[in-house]
């Protein structure tokens, strides 16, 4: 079945960075469609273009050529301020290094984007507290980032991304700075939210443990898609290989 509208759609996307006089191609003609509600991972070695791909999907960077559509909107045609509005209203971000504002408490960090959206205080608090209790942050509302562990900080970052109920969450190596147990706990939270809310998740990783949890795995190599498989296909392939062996 083909969805009426893709959550994310890329056609022949090219992106080249210039390092001094040298052109460094980051994406070389990437085409991709991601349906609403998918829980997809973008994997690949360092320099394969994972972060660039996520930045372009999130409107943080612009493609040199090709077409990028998020929630039906062609990002290439949007101004910087329209992109900021799109990010605020439709996209949630989780960064590798948590990136909470150090001067705000966990609750204030989580409600930051709601405040920018102009949501009233009572509603903000209700939504954040509900989310905090769902992801195991209840009781930590008044702590500043420095008083939280890495895993707790990253969960606050996920709460901040989720609290506006965006259509899409982009997470750039969200488990890179976490130990295995904390990383698994975070993935549990993300998967739970994906299942319950139907929010589309796209996260980059080079951690096999994380790749295993993705429902769809897109592998990048040298700025191109090397493979793009659903978990079922992966499992079927592994089974087939086992049978053959």
């Amino acid at each position, binding site marked *: 079945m083909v969805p009426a509208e893709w959550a994310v759609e890329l056609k022949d996307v090219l992106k080249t960075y210039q390092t001094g006089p040298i052109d460094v191609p980051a994406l070389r003609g990437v085409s991709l469609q991601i349906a609403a509600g998918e829980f997809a991972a973008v994997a690949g070695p360092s320099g394969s273009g994972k972060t660039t791909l996520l*930045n372009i999907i999130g409107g943080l960077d612009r493609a040199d050529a090709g077409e990028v559509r998020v929630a039906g909107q062609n990002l290439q045609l949007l101004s910087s301020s329209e992109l900021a509005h799109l990010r605020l209203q439709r996209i949630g971000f989780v960064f590798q290094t948590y990136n909470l504002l150090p*001067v705000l408490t966990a609750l204030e960090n989580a409600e930051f984007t709601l405040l920018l959206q102009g949501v009233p205080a009572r509603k903000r608090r209700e939504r954040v507290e509900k989310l905090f209790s769902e992801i195991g942050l209840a009781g930590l509302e008044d702590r500043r980032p420095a008083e939280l562990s890495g895993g707790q900080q990253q969960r606050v970052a996920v709460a901040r991304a989720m609290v506006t109920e965006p259509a899409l969450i982009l997470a750039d190596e969200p488990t890179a700075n976490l130990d295995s147990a904390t990383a698994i706990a975070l993935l549990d939270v993300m998967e739970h939210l994906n299942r319950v809310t139907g929010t589309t998740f796209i996260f980059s990783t080079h951690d096999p443990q994380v790749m295993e949890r993705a429902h769809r795995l897109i592998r990048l190599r040298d700025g191109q898609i090397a493979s793009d498989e659903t978990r079922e296909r992966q499992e079927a392939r592994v089974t087939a290989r086992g049978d053959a062996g």
Partner: protein
Amino acid sequence: MRSALLLVKIGWRNLWRNPRGTLLTALALGLGLALLLISLGLLDGGHEQTIADGVRLGPGHVVIQAKGYQDSGSDELLLPAQVVSRIEGFLQTAEMKKLVRGVSPRLLATGLLSSSANSAGVRIMGVIPQDEPAVSFIPQRIVEGTYLSDDRPSGVVIGAELARELEVKIGSRVVLMTQALRQPGVETKKGAGEEMQSTLLRVSGIFRTGLQAVDANIIQLPLPAAQTLLGVPDGQVTQVALLLQQEGDSPMVARALLKQLTGEPVEVLTWRESIPMLAQILGLDHAFNYIMNGVILAMVGLGILNTILMRVLERRYEFGVSKALGLRPGQLAVMVIGESLALTAISLALGLALGLSVEHYFATSGLDLRWIFKADLPSALVLDPILYSRLSSNRIIWSVSIVFAMTTVISFYPALKAARTELPDALKGL
């Protein structure tokens, strides 16, 4: 509105991420404001004192004299008796009485004062002994003997330098020689003419103002004695000097007098017109002080700019994240400006507390210039070595506004820098 409050809250909390740095910066800016307030207070206090001294050694805040006297300096130009009466009558009105502290009619001339030892050219001031102390500085500066009085019609007070030159002391006899004044169309007193006149006087007091020109030249004697010597009819004087309660009322009082004396051959001058050099010196001093204050503020301003800019550059990554989350460039700028304004508010509080405390001390106890100049006090510049600060509320409002406006303008550049945080480059910081 809600998001603006959040941005201000973030700005305020950001200040306290580095409390020591924030307090040092606030102290630097506060010190700038404090210096501004102290220097303006001392400047205004000094000027007020200089004006007060200047007018009390000269012709008062407002002077009425015969038309043309200011330009020609001719002692033969006298105020007619009926004009003096009109002036005195007008100054007795309730409205004028509230404004005027003292009135002194004076007869001025030049002459030669001789003792048994020496002679010196002098400036003669015929004054009414009981009126002059309310206007002039000289009666207060008697260092030996006493000031003039009506019961000593032949008494004279002279400056300490003149006394030294003539080698006279209290009770010494001196001879004042001068030429009788001739007025066009006015008959002089019997016996007076172009020939030299002289009179025997007795030194009743010696004064010391600290000003060489005054202490070596000015002599004061009772007005009737001066009128007789100079052959001037009763009631005629060179000028009527007024000392006002408030220096600022000078133009208003001068205008009222001029209106009252319309048609009379007189000129009514404020001290700015009668002592133009004093006004010019004060104007120059003001200008110099403004330049100095400008330099202080510019230096403090550059320090503030550097601090805020460093704070912004250090948080480039944080701004990148905020922008990625949907914060618009304008909101980022508001956040930085809010932070600067919060810093300014702390600085202004510190500066006001420090500046007004020191200013209050100088306003009540004064700044003793003898402590700074030791023995070399420039007596030509200051008659009173204790300088008292005077700071008006207008000056405080002006100073605070200047510092506030300066820091606000200064914060625009770092705010612009924050607003221009480029994505995704800023996110590559870590």
